[in-house]
């Protein structure tokens, strides 16, 4: 099957600054993928190129097998909600009306339901909305469009915890009813972790990790205890992060641990704690790309 999103050797250069460096990745149709990485890692640039808003310096992007740039057959199946979306001098309902014309599968019921959930007044001028409210508007458009490929760039910047929970719940319910390909960039990794089936981590314009979210649980473990015990336990293993305070050491061990490993850790009186997705991403972003290929394989 053709992947929903296929990127090969994608490079984007701005006046000597390399925003994307030979990025290759695939996103299969009907999945929720998290695009994770630090500020300036290249997430927005990647999404803008996928949506045909920006042009690659080199490399190829295919959406359902066809290049998106100026290709309306592809673009019409795609919606891109970005954190810094610029709107005309519209009220909320104007923006929704225009979106409803342009998306063949637009759901007015869903849009109305989300407006109510987020307590977004349809008659309010968009420029008078708070940051969180603007984000909510983007979410309403992105979800109600029911586009085959839905790209969310930091969709909930400024949204409070309650509204974020509404977003997660409604997105999952929508996704169950109307499956589609969702690519979501976010900083709130642990919060979104339950939502994500796959994650792509990019750093300094390069993909440093792609994996199924389930595969990543338990792929790395924080090990702490006395320096000697830790050294004994980690001998021959891939270790990411090593901290030492007096006679105590704390490291991150890469690779799944089996029962024998755990028994050994117990006998050495070591503490084991699985890394959360967020911690994993923080560590992954700090590693040279080649160390990670072993873990994502």
């Amino acid at each position, binding site marked *: 099957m053709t992947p929903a999103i296929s990127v090969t050797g994608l490079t984007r250069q701005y006046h000597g600054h390399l925003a994307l460096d030979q990025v290759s990745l695939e996103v299969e149709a009907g999945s929720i993928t998290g695009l994770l990485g630090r500020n300036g890692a290249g997430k927005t640039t990647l999404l803008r190129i996928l949506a045909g808003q920006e042009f690659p310096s080199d490399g190829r992007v295919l959406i359902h097998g066809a290049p998106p740039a100026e290709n*309306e057959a592809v673009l019409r199946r795609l*919606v891109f909600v970005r954190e810094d979306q610029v*709107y*005309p*001098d*519209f009220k909320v309902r104007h923006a929704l009306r225009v*979106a409803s014309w342009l998306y063949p599968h637009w759901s007015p019921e869903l849009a109305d339901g989300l407006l109510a959930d987020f307590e977004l007044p349809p008659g309010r001028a968009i420029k008078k909305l708070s940051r969180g409210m603007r984000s909510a508007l983007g979410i309403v458009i992105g979800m109600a469009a029911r586009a085959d490929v839905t790209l969310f760039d930091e969709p909930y910047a400024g949204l409070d915890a309650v509204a974020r929970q509404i977003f997660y719940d409604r997105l999952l319910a929508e996704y169950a009813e109307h499956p589609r390909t969702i690519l979501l960039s976010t900083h709130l990794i642990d919060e979104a972790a339950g939502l994500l089936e796959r994650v792509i981590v990019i750093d300094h314009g390069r993909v440093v990790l792609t994996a199924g979210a389930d595969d990543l649980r338990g792929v790395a473990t924080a090990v702490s205890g006395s320096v000697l015990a830790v050294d004994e336990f980690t001998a021959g293993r891939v270790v990411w992060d090593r901290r030492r305070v007096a006679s105590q050491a704390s490291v991150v061990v890469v690779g799944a641990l089996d029962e024998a490993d755990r028994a050994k850790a117990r006998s050495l009186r070591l503490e084991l704690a699985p890394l959360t997705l967020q911690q994993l991403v923080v560590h992954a972003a700090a590693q040279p790309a080649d160390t990670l290929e072993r873990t994502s394989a």
Partner: protein
Amino acid sequence: MRTWRDIARYHLVVPWLPAALPWAALALSFVVNLVIFSLVPTSYHEVLTSHGLVRVANPSNNYTGGLATIYVFLLVIGINSIGRSLPFGLALGVSRRSFYTGTALFGVVLAFIDGTLLTALQAIERATGGWGVRMHFFEVPYILDGPWYLTWLTSFVALALLFVWGMWFGIVYRRWNLFGSVAFIAVQVTVLLVAALIVSWADAWPGVGHFFAGLTAAGLTGVLAALAALLLAGGQATIRRATV
């Protein structure tokens, strides 16, 4: 086709700016002129006829520049139709090509309607003897003083020209910001300057004078239409690589 229509409608979702604001401004200008000319006494001269001396009103010279208001507004609406509208249009899966065609379509429709209204108002002006105060608000010597169909054609083409020019400005600003816009103006001025220099060196000014003197209002409209087509093509070429 559908997308073009949807984009044209997109520009009319909040209709008062493109549809009503230019007319409100024009109405203000009209009322100001009307009041002024109603205060200015009509000048007369006396003519000796078989009935003796008769007072005859001098030909009216009550021309105003007020009509320019609506043309300036079409330029502004053209600029505005790109600025904040293009990014949201592209976010909704519209190609630059469709956005441009749909926006130009909107401009042409707007110019068509406004041109028609201006023609009707000129007819009223003629029928009422210049709104009772011998004012030529909707009539401009040489350009807009012919039969109604020429008034309509010239108004329509000139309004569309201003809109298309504005679109190109909007796209240039989108791509290269303020610096690019200033450079864009500089290039246009330079083109005119170079043309003037070439005409001077070739001692061709009398020829240019004859060309324009010989040009009818219809011919002038043709020149404006050609210019509009040129600007339209320029905008199309500029939007191709615009990013948002």
